[in-house]
């Protein structure tokens, strides 16, 4: 096994990326993705420490996190769809200037 610091650095990087997305972005779907990236970072930590200590509990936690991630994405997407059908949501396509047509 690689040193645990490798996994900690990866986990920290993913956590910060997710945190930046949650704090800075306004798009609800991107916010959801950011939260999932944070949970994914936690899962990597759980599995790495589980392997380090030879204890399967970390993997159980990570499995719970994966299941919760999937459920959260689906239910939150349903809520977003319901809200957007009730109130019209602004989309980037509504901007008429040429620069907004860039796909990136």
């Amino acid at each position: 096994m690689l040193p645990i610091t490798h996994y900690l650095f990866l986990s920290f990087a993913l956590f910060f990326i997710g945190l930046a997305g949650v704090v800075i972005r306004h798009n609800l779907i991107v916010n959801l993705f950011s939260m999932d990236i944070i949970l994914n970072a936690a899962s990597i930590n759980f599995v790495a420490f589980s392997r380090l200590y030879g204890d399967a509990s970390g993997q159980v936690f990570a499995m719970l996190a994966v299941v919760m991630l999937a459920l959260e994405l689906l239910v939150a997407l349903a809520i977003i769809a319901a809200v957007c059908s009730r109130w019209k949501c602004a989309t980037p396509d509504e901007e008429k200037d040429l620069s907004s047509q860039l796909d990136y």
Partner: protein
Amino acid sequence: MHGEITFYLLAGIAILGAVLAVTRRRAFYASLYFGLSLLASAGIFLQLHAPLLFVAQLVAMVCGTMGIILFAVEVSTINVALVKEHRWRPRVAAFAIGVVSLVLIVFTALRGLLLQPGENLTALLPHGALAAVPRAAELIKFFFSHELLPLLLILFILLIGGVGFRAVFQKRAQD
């Protein structure tokens, strides 16, 4: 050696996918890059000898959820920005991520100067700083009790409720 190369490759893909997912303006492209990041994470799970998690991540997240998300985003045109998002926001996100990544890279490069061979990061902490922290196995056993399930359920409901409340009240305030 092969393990290190595989780890660096997968970690790079995971971080790059996460960065691109967070900084894209269109939800469709963000979801594609998010799926890529999840795939790389699944590979890291496999490298950590957790094949069950690898399969779960692959099936539950990448195949199931991403398929539904792409279908919903593309077919139903749910490209959601509850308030019109300024163009500078993704750039601020990219800048913040870049700064922290730079700090991480510099710290990783200088780690060899800060630590003696065989030492880990805890050597940088004040002596005895971790004395009060119980062993990880005991901590996991403490949390993995019969109280875990209600706690998880409450957290899940709070999370979903938070998303819904934010969406509803933001739209009401805007209207």
